[in-house]
């Protein structure tokens, strides 16, 4: 038995690590960390059976093992290949790998609409990062990109099928995390699309985790839709005592001032949901979609963000407010303010709370006269109903 538990050593880009037998090359590379780790679009360590579809994690095996040091003839998917003792793996040091990865990215982008300016995932999108690293400036594709008729899959999740790369992660969440799977991939080949079974709404508990696992902007949070850009919101670690025993209750709040715009599970450095005591920290739909008030949460502090991420732009860890001297000197007399910005500016109107709208804001939500007449800020449900009326009016 001692023989079986023996650690084996694997060399990845000239760095040797000792790992348990049965570890995949990708997991071993994650132990090394940094640039050595191959990117992964479909593999998700917390979802059983994921990986092997997108081919972005291809690596070159220069020597199979100590016993059989012959190189593997083709590049292998590192998320699905287990390591052998004495294996020598080349990732960024191999030109073949880089060339193949550039090709894979080109294929992934063939049908991708590249509508990052509109997409809510921009700024935390794995495909965006990958294209920056490996993509080309132009496309060689001369045919029409595939398009789909827009499908409504429920009040919480927004589906953009054109952006999907068919990684199947959300399907696995439906199977393994959510209580019942009501969606899947229908049709084949170029027509393959994520869809619900006969236009059902995805509203079963824990289905919101699909949003977190989606590597692109195909599944986004409808309660956050278009409300703000990711990099303007400030991520804060927070927790609450969730009644649901399966929900870990530890989340990242994406805040602006006191407003909670979005709630997501906490992410580890690989963009996956963080594990606590070996258990992935999935969060329930109540935590994600219903608790949009700072008072619902115990805020722990700032989330650590990678120094190179746009999410950290213009954010300061500590803010030291300069002391007001005028009040001290003038014996408590307050200085006369030259201008209240809200008297002129319509942006960030204190009467309109975007974060409390159930869906994306529409023109009617910004119409101040309208919003006062219809009491939209007080009752967010009204806005949605009002919008539906507007739609009916314009269509009819």
């Amino acid at each position, binding site marked *: 038995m001692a023989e079986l538990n023996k650690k084996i050593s694997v060399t990845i880009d000239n760095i040797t690590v000792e790992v348990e037998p049965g570890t995949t090359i990708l997991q071993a590379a994650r132990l090394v960390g940094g640039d050595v780790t191959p990117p992964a679009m479909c593999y998700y360590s917390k979802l059983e059976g994921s990986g092997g579809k997108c081919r972005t994690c291809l690596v070159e095996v220069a020597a199979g093992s100590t016993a059989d040091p012959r190189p593997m003839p083709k590049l292998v998917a590192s998320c699905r290949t287990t390591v052998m003792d004495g294996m020598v793996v080349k990732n960024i040091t191999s030109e073949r790998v880089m060339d193949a990865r550039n090709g894979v990215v080109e294929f992934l982008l063939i049908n991708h609409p590249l509508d990052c300016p509109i997409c809510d995932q921009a700024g935390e999108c794995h495909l965006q990062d990958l294209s920056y690293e490996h993509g080309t400036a132009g496309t060689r594709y001369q045919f029409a990109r595939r398009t789909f008729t827009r499908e409504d899959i429920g009040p919480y999740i927004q589906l953009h099928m054109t952006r999907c790369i068919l990684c199947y992660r959300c399907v696995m969440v439906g199977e393994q995390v959510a209580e019942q799977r009501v969606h899947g991939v229908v049709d084949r080949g170029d027509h393959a699309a994520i869809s619900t079974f006969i236009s059902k709404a995805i509203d079963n508990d824990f289905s919101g985790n699909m949003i977190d696992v989606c590597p692109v902007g195909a599944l986004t949070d409808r309660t956050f839709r*278009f409300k703000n850009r990711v990099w303007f919101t400030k991520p804060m670690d927070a927790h609450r005592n969730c009644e649901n025993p399966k929900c870990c209750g530890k989340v990242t709040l994406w805040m602006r001032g006191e407003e909670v715009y979005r709630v997501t599970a906490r992410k580890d450095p690989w963009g996956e949901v963080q594990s606590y005591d070996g258990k992935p920290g999935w969060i329930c739909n109540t935590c994600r979609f219903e608790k949009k008030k700072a008072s619902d949460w115990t805020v722990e502090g700032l989330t650590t963000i990678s120094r190179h991420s746009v999410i950290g732009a213009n954010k300061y860890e500590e803010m030291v407010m300069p002391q007001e001297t005028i009040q001290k000197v003038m014996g408590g007399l307050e200085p006369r303010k030259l201008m209240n910005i809200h008297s002129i500016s319509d942006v960030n109107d204190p009467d309109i709370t975007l974060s409390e709208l159930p869906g994306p804001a529409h*023109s009617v939500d910004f119409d101040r006269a309208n919003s006062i007449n219809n009491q939209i800020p007080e009752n967010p449900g009204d806005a949605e109903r009002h919008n539906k009326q507007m*739609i009916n009016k314009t269509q009819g």
Partner: protein
Amino acid sequence: MQPLTNRAQAVNRAPLTWWERIYLPAIIGGMAITLKHFFKKKPTINYPEKTRPFSPVFRGLHILNRDEQGRENCTACGLCAVACPAEAITMEAAERLPGEEHLYREEKYAARYEINMLRCIFCGLCEEACPKDAIYLSETFAPSDYQRKQFIYAKNDLLIPHPEKEPEAYKKALGNRAGKKRSEIG
């Protein structure tokens, strides 16, 4: 100290001569120079009536662009705001409703878009960041005013005139900038 330029001259502290002390020759010499300028070409122009041509890379007041059908280009992606070193740009996005397709080019648009001209330093980084050719800096000055509130420019102040409803005003506002790469302008 070593002189920084070769134009340094030692001060002459010798007492004035008789010719210098009578003063008038120097005055007449000075007057002659002044008189000479009366007959030279004037370097100034009568500003509001006449204007000088702008440099092709002049960065003036911002304009929010529309496409040929008059739909707003801006999708409120926030890249201008994140690029802005003065944090002068703020915006709020909204989803386009069915029936509003003639107003906005994409499904998301800027419902509110404001530039604080008191903060703006006219660096042009917003123009460079824009992926939709939606904002560009025109060949106009931001007009001066006595009140601060006049300097918060909302979408109505920034939007280019409608190309179909007011084609002439649109063309004038467009200038020779929009839709062109920097290298093409010159």
